[in-house]
């Protein structure tokens, strides 16, 4: 495929932004339907309790209240919250949309109040009298796995939901040959994804037509349609999911929650539109969390730094129930334990345990930040043990560019990569040797300075359907309208990734037209053909690839008609800059002229279907494996433990870039979140399962002034997996940054004998490390 690079590769400003900046975009809460009723969900204040009785009489008497529903009302009528992972040994507790006899986490939905406005609904919810009998709480994942722990779901007799083993190679032999075995226990704390727009659902039901419309702030409108139709027993083609503007997802909206089906069911009971908009406190309690792994890593290594094997024995604290992908997330960790190194033998044992907390699930990176963090942290631990420079140790174990495709001992095949190139570039930008000299001088002067390097690789463009729970392909339809304007229908569901812009760039170049003539439509299951959605850095690499293939089909079709109209041999025509040329007498036709002729259909070749439209479902042959090097320089206040990031360098390789401005934006946001995991963020539950970080006053989402200036650059190693050569970049910043910051801080603390500190690296922790 060749591109006219008028748009592709250019820093085109996002066409989505003007409406968003002006506040005139439409989110779920901006959709107003006449006679809408408002729903407030009463949630459990207990982490674990038996519900002895619920009295809703007083709530029902509140003026404006139309209905109050509890678990008894929905039992047998609304299906359970779905879990997409099918595994014969996986224990799947029944997760009703409203609690039945027990509550299992703070925030567990107990009742739904429907009223004419949300104030009445909330007042009434406060009047519902629930007789809770508190039960023993299991709030710690490691304790939950112990045989003497109270059991959360009695029907299983254990809190262990699944034991997942991964990795290949002779691990025992690897460890037997080792000169050294380096062991480190690591905690990946729970995080809250915190999209600016919380979740929200608006449901409307037409009884005559037996049609249910759902507006939902989601990343997966089609998958949601399928799941909600199953939960409600509705024919799938009578459920329409519309995803208007989505104010961020970060994985937390790659899910089907209790509220979508519940709202749909209520709309079907009352025959009126019903709306529920999640509050921030609810968002902390009842929207999925990310990470939550505690484990021990062991690395077998030769004295010269050659890596032989890696073992990871980990407990994943998955919360009380499975959401859509809860049990699958830790398995992604198992795919990436080789990092960007040659490690002949790898073994992971992951024990997934139930606790009385909100479920974990996909949060930006989803299982891969855990892998990258532990591999990169251990690389520094090994370097320290061997007295090697951490950069040299990494370098020594890189697969070389000619070794790709590279098969790891996790069983995945890295598509392409040049790890040395990004590392060298980052080291040059940082002036690494000089930094080490500065560090020596700083240490001599009593200052606490550290340099952290992270060379990461991640798994993206999810993915080959065989490896995905609900298909990994993506769809695109391109329609050249009679006037020559182009409509793209994409199965991905962008919510900040800028595909309206990037896809218009691709089509603009491929058809040689003004990109502003391209409209990208997404997120409406009644309009767009079935698609998978946006997650796992797949929008461009899979959805964009589908669009390229669809556009090629449309050009091919147009060429046939152009040849017919020009009286030319199809083989002699070429399509250049929006025109079919090469016909006798220098005659040519533009794509717009051909489109009109295809619709008026006055003269068509034999067997030529009128219209100019094409659809393609793209099935990726492999994942992609973006990579890069991040370098962080920190200085810590010796007296107080306060930390300053002096420099932050990121050289990322996401393959070909369609829009470097969007790439940079994704990297910026990604680093902000990864750095915040390193320094600030942590979901904290106490021993009673109470959520102590239930507001933005206590959960430290990073603010602009808390972040350093980023020094960004990139290398380009295209992927052979898709026609764009693009690997995906949505999660790279998050994955690469956390270990770079952690390694910098721990490097800074080395003179104090510190070998590891668990995240987040709050000042008090660092102060104690220096003064204990």
């Amino acid at each position, binding site marked *: 495929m060749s591109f006219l690079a008028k748009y592709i590769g250019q820093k085109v400003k996002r066409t989505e932004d003007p409406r968003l900046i002006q506040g005139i975009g439409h989110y779920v809460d901006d959709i107003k339907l006449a006679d809408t009723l408002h729903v407030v969900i009463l949630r459990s204040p207990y982490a674990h309790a038996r519900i002895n009785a619920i009295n809703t009489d007083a709530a029902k008497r509140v003026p404006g209240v139309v209905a109050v529903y509890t678990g008894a009302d929905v039992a047998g009528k609304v299906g359970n919250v779905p879990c997409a992972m099918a595994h014969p040994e996986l224990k799947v507790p029944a997760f009703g949309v409203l609690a039945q006899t027990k509550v299992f986490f703070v925030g567990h939905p107990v009742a739904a109040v429907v009223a004419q406005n949300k104030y009445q609904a909330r007042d009434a919810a406060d009047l519902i009298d629930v007789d809770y009998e508190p039960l023993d709480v299991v709030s710690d994942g490691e304790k939950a796995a112990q045989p003497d722990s109270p059991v959360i779901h009695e029907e299983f007799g254990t809190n262990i939901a699944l034991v997942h083993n991964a990795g290949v190679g002779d691990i025992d032999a690897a460890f037997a040959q080792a000169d050294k075995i380096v062991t480190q226990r690591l905690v990946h704390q729970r995080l809250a994804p915190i999209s600016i727009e919380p979740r929200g659902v608006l449901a409307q039901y037409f009884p005559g037509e037996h049609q249910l419309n759902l507006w939902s702030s989601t990343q997966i409108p089609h998958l949601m349609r399928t799941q909600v139709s199953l939960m409600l027993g509705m024919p799938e083609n009578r459920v329409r999911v519309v995803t208007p503007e989505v104010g961020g997802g970060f994985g937390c909206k790659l899910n089907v929650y209790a509220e979508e089906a519940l709202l749909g069911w209520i709309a079907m009971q009352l025959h009126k539109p019903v709306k529920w908009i999640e509050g921030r406190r609810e968002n902390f309690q009842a929207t999925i969390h990310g990470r939550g792994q505690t484990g021990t890593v062991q690395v077998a290594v030769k004295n010269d730094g050659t890596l032989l094997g890696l073992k990871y024995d980990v407990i994943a604290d998955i919360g009380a129930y499975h959401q859509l992908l809860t049990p699958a997330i830790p398995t992604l960790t198992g795919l990436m334990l080789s990092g960007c190194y040659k490690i002949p033998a790898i073994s992971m044992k992951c024990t997934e345990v139930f606790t009385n907390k909100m479920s974990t699930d996909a949060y930006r990176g989803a299982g891969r930040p855990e892998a990258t963090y532990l591999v990169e942290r251990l690389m520094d631990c090994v370097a320290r043990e061997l007295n090697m420079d951490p950069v040299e140790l990494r370098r020594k174990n890189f697969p070389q560019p000619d070794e790709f495709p590279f098969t790891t001992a996790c069983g995945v095949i890295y598509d392409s990569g040049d790890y040395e190139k990004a590392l060298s570039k980052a080291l040059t930008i940082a002036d690494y040797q000089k930094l080490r000299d500065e560090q020596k001088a700083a240490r001599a002067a009593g200052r606490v300075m550290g340099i952290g390097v992270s060379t990461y690789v991640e798994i993206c463009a999810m993915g080959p359907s065989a490896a995905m729970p609900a298909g990994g392909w993506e769809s695109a339809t391109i329609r050249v309208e009679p006037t020559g304007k182009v409509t793209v229908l994409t199965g991905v569901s962008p919510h900040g990734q800028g595909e309206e812009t990037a896809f218009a760039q691709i089509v603009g170049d491929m058809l040689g037209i003004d990109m502003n003539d391209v409209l990208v439509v997404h997120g409406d299951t009644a309009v767009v053909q079935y698609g998978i959605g946006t997650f796992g850095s797949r929008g461009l690499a899979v959805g964009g690839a589908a669009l390229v293939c669809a556009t090629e089909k449309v050009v091919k079709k147009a060429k046939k008609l152009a040849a017919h109209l020009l009286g030319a041999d199809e083989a002699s025509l070429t399509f250049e800059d929006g025109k079919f040329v090469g016909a006798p007498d220098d005659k040519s036709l533009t794509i717009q002229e051909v489109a009109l002729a295809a619709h008026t259909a006055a003269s068509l070749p034999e067997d030529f279907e009128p219209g100019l439209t094409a659809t393609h479902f793209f099935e990726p042959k492999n994942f992609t494996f973006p990579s890069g090097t991040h370098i962080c320089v920190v200085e810590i206040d010796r007296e107080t433990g306060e930390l300053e990031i002096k420099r932050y360098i990121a050289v990322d390789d996401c393959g070909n870039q369609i829009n470097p401005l969007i790439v940079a934006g994704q990297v910026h946001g990604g680093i902000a979140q990864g750095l915040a995991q390193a320094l600030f963020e942590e979901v904290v539950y106490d021993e009673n399962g109470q959520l102590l970080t239930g507001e933005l006053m206590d959960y430290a989402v990073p603010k602009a002034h808390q972040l350093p200036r980023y020094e960004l650059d990139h290398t380009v190693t295209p992927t052979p997996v898709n026609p764009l050569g693009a690997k995906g970049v949505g999660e790279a910043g998050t994955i690469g940054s956390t270990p770079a910051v952690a390694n910098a801080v721990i490097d800074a603390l080395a003179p104090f004998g510190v070998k590891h500190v668990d995240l987040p690296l*709050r000042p008090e922790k660092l102060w104690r490390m220096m003064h204990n």
Partner: protein
Amino acid sequence: MIPTNFEYFAPATIEEALQLLDQHGEDAKLLSGGQSLIPVLKLRLAAPTAIIDIGRIAALKQISVSGDTIRIGANATHADIARHAELKQHCPLLGETAAQIGDQQVRNRGTIGGSLTHADPAADWPAAILALDAEIVARSSQGERVIKATDFFVDVMTSAVQPNEIVTEIRVAKPAQPQAAVYLKVPQAASGFALVGVAAQLTLNNGKCEAASIGVTGLGPKAFRATTLEAALRGQALDDSTVSAAAAKADAETADALEDIHASGDYRRHLARVYAKRAVQAAAARA
């Protein structure tokens, strides 16, 4: 926000506001910039039946410097104070403190009167107000009274302001050496409130400390004057060892240091000592 039901009043004058306050008594809450009240309403931690919005009373927004007295209307926002040229000249500690509160949006809405009345133990203003030995003017329908800063903060979220009173003004005597002042804080990463904040206002004479006035916030249930530390500096040359030894007493007035998921009591005490030292050194260096 889904608060409980309340009636909303927007009086145009202080008199009208006081009348409403008398009428509704303890069922009423005053709304100024809303930066403390709105979150509380949102969480239904308070359920007032009347909200009296005093934010539109223009008379409460004035900032003036005349003679030896600086007067700041209770409705002046943190942003108003942070950019006020005369304040910068005569009492830069005020603007320096204001500029470190929350973020720009909070500073654009939040008011000094509201923040002081709310008496959050980790708010920034109390440290500066104490260090400046300010006076807070409160009015009720019975008349006006002047409360000294040292009497103003009573306990966690409790100030000396009575339910029938409105804070109208903050009065500060122009410091003799306005430049010899500083406010330093360690912000809590999520909220931006002070884990510990120290405001220092010094009077120096021939290299010696004639007077030191140090306000500490964030450490205890209420902000306080570090009087032991102040006494240890009085009459002394501010060399490193004197300042360090004095600053080691920065937490002497607090029996119970605050503790939460963000910092232990011990760490807060430590920060108070370190930042008291740094504040005194920085103020002295600026003089």
